[in-house]
């Protein structure tokens, strides 16, 4: 599935990350030029889902672990922020102990911590299995998380939880259109750089090697479980951050955001963009979300086109959109 590793140069990846972040940073300018403020909203959504997809790709693309529980972890992050705001709103206490807060400098790290811890616990069980069993057990955990939040009647159950009060970051209003967008973009840039460093570090080498040849890795003296588990927890924490940002941005979270289909969407974003690069899923998320909104406006049968597109990508574009970029680049170079 990965494209030729010969071209794997960390420096060119840092360049790509810089370009992507720069392009995204210019979106509000374009939006004000064409007079369509909605462009910022959709870019916000792209950035938030890109964070989640990059998180998934850490274990999927580099660790070879097809996880279907990332929507659940994503949702945990969202619920942490929403539940804290809920308690701040009516001045009640969480577990009769902790006061709520609308301050994101507390909410976001806590969301990452809780989602990361959940990923670690569920990962510990899941990583005992492999292959299709791993896919299925992560699906099972996703469903459990889903039903868990459906059962939380206090926090809205299936209806979800609205965030009624205004969220702040270090005391400043956090969810203004522009400030929130740039906040999310900074988070994405940080996540990309961290993950990029990570996969080229010693830890990353072990993780990547474990997905290519587990038997060989053991034979040279490295047991992959601890590394996979660490990556899984980290990936969960970042997915939790994305979920927290989604909840903060739309001031709402519900179990529907955690359905296993959403986990599948995240996998499609990774594959669509290309899993061999840290930044591939950012492309995937952008194309996926824009297509979703454009196609669904055309026809009620838009899922037909969407299904065909997924098949097409798997059949002919095995490295995802990254491959397409390479093709275009090569043609440009040979001209």
């Amino acid at each position, binding site marked *: *599935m990965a494209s030729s590793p010969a071209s794997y140069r960390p420096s060119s990846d840092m360049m790509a990350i810089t370009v992507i972040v720069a392009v995204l940073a210019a979106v509000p300018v374009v939006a004000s030029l064409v007079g369509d403020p909605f462009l910022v909203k959709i870019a916000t959504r792209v950035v938030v889902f890109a964070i989640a997809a990059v998180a998934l790709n850490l274990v*999927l693309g580099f660790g070879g672990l*097809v996880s279907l529980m990332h929507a659940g972890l994503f949702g945990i992050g969202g619920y942490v922020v929403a539940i804290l705001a809920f308690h701040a709103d009516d001045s009640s206490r969480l577990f009769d102990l902790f006061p709520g807060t609308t301050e994101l400098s507390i909410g976001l790290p806590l969301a990452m911590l809780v989602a990361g811890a959940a990923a670690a616990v569920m990962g510990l*069980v899941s990583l*005992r*299995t*492999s*292959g*299709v*069993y791993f*896919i*299925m*057990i992560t*699906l*099972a*955990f996703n*469903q*459990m998380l889903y*039903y*868990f939040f*459906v*059962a939380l009647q206090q926090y809205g159950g299936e209806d979800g939880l609205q965030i009624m009060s205004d969220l702040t970051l270090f005391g400043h209003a956090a969810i203004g259109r522009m400030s929130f967008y740039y906040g999310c973009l900074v988070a994405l840039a940080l996540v990309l750089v961290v993950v990029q460093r990570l996969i080229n570090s010693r830890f990353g080498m072990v993780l990547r090697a474990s997905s290519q040849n587990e038997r060989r890795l053991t034979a040279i003296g490295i047991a992959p479980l601890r590394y996979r588990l660490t990556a899984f927890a980290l990936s969960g924490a970042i997915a939790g951050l994305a979920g927290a940002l989604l909840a903060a941005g739309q001031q709402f979270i519900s179990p529907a955001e955690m359905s*296993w289909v959403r986990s*599948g969407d995240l*996998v*499609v974003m990774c*594959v669509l963009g290309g899993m061999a690069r840290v930044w591939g899923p950012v492309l995937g998320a952008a194309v996926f979300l824009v297509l979703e909104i454009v196609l669904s406006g055309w026809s009620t*049968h838009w*899922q*037909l086109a*969407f*299904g*065909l*597109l*997924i*098949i097409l*990508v*798997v*059949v002919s574009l*095995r490295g995802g959109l990254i491959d397409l970029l390479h093709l275009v680049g090569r043609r440009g170079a040979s001209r």
Partner: protein
Amino acid sequence: MDVALFTEQLLNGVQLGVQLFLMAAGLTLVFGIMNMINLTHGSLYMIGAFVAAALFGHTGSFLLALVIAVPATALAGALLEAAVLRHFYHRGHLDQVLVTFGLILVLNEIVKMIWGAVPVPLPVPQLLSGSVTLFADVTYPSFRLAILGVGAVVALGLYAVVAHTRIGMWVRAGASNRDIASAMGVNVELIFSLVFAAGAALAGLAGIMAGPINAVQVGMGEPVLILALVVTVIGGVGSIKGAFIAALMIGVVDTFGRVLLPPALGSMMIFMLMAVILAWRPRGLFPVHG
């Protein structure tokens, strides 16, 4: 819960299990033999039910609908295999999941274009519309008994074919080592196609038998597919015996879980069961070698 009610619930659990087994059998065979995750199995279930409903609408005969719709689904499966899925046997599981997921979207829309979004009727055949008194205090719907019967016959039939016939031997040979089997003169391609068509026929049969008790509508295959995947994985991928035992287990656990536990916990039961079993036996209850 008195004895009569307990018996009835047990029957319900076993009947649900048998229904799941019809789905899981095809899934686990294709899975075990071709090493192919085929999510379109749920779509074949839907196609079976829709074709039967359409035939019933024209002829008014459930039996005729059944007799034609099962081979029709097998044919649809064979076409799907030859046109698309065949090219993915050697790809990774991720590719297989994605392609068949894409196919689900496509097939759902096609069915919606043909039959519309409104659920279509497929009633219980007249002969089986009543209830039967089994013993004192226990009456049971005849059609559910029929599902039990069909499932039992299919399970026995499958066991006999796989364990005792020449085709079954070829299937096992093809599964354990493709190259050696071809060298011995087994047409592996043909065997694979046959297995796939047979699996499709079973999915279609499951869909038709479910038609009279479930809604025949677009997307009806997905919830069943998830349950059948759970069954397949708990039983051990590739194991018919495992699928059978796991299906009964899921049917009974789900039935009693729903009745005895609070609803939130009841809906989580089968997933918790799967997580516990896989944590204990990472390759399912009856792992198949290879």
